[in-house]
């Protein structure tokens, strides 16, 4: 049987890596979304810049 400390160490390691990768991908998705919104605003023309979103 796998030693419980060995199991916990590997489980914790993967949890830490996955949590960080998940947080990073969430922030990337948010920046992509904001960039896309800004691109659309710019494409819509100068008059739309001061319009509330």
């Amino acid at each position: 049987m796998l030693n419980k400390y060995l199991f916990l160490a590997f489980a914790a390691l993967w949890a830490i890596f996955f949590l960080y990768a998940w947080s990073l991908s969430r922030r990337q998705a948010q920046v992509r979304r904001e960039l896309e919104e800004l691109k659309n605003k710019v494409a819509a023309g100068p008059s739309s810049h001061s319009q509330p979103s």
Partner: protein
Amino acid sequence: MSKIFSPTMHLLVTLVWFMVALYMVFLYAPQEATMGEVQRIFYIHVSSAWTAFLAYFLVFVGSAGYLWKRSPEADHLAQAGGEVGFVFCSAVLVTGPLWARPVWGIWWTWDARLTLTFVLWLLFVSYLMLRRYVSSPGRAETLAAVVGIIGFVDVPIDYMAIRWWRTQHPQPVMAGGEGSGLDPRMWVTLLVTWGAFLCLFAYLMGERLWLAEAGRQLSAIRRGLAIRPSED
């Protein structure tokens, strides 16, 4: 900047490398005579520690580069190194006590190596908090760079702590003098595992650098859009 691998390919290589490393940790490396199975934590613990040291070195290089040239790329390198390094340093502080409990009978002791590693983790935390909570533009980068440079002093002292002082922490496996060292199969396993960690580190750094650059571009576009109506 052109990349050798696409991020997807890089992630795939990392995953395959980790599978090889896991095979070696559990099936190739021999079982240590006195500690038994729990000694296998050593491969991920040491790999995390070496990677955290490398990350803080990048924080130092990026911080020095920023203070010297005021280059946003250098600042991004320091910022990414600080964040990814925090992840690996946290892994060191979690896997260490899980090895110490069955081997020493205690989770933690304030010996030189453990204390200095905890200080390194606090340095990563303070570096990231400075970046997050100092809002005036330019000031956060400069203050963080100063912390990044001064804090780097901890890394060589932490690395040398088990050579300079008598500690509860095991003696070094590399250049540790007479009686130290590893079985050749353990050495190969350790190096392959560290390679997998470095591959993951490079992947996370690449993704974090992309985020920093995209964030900078986003701010620049926003500033441009905010200025434009008054120019009309």
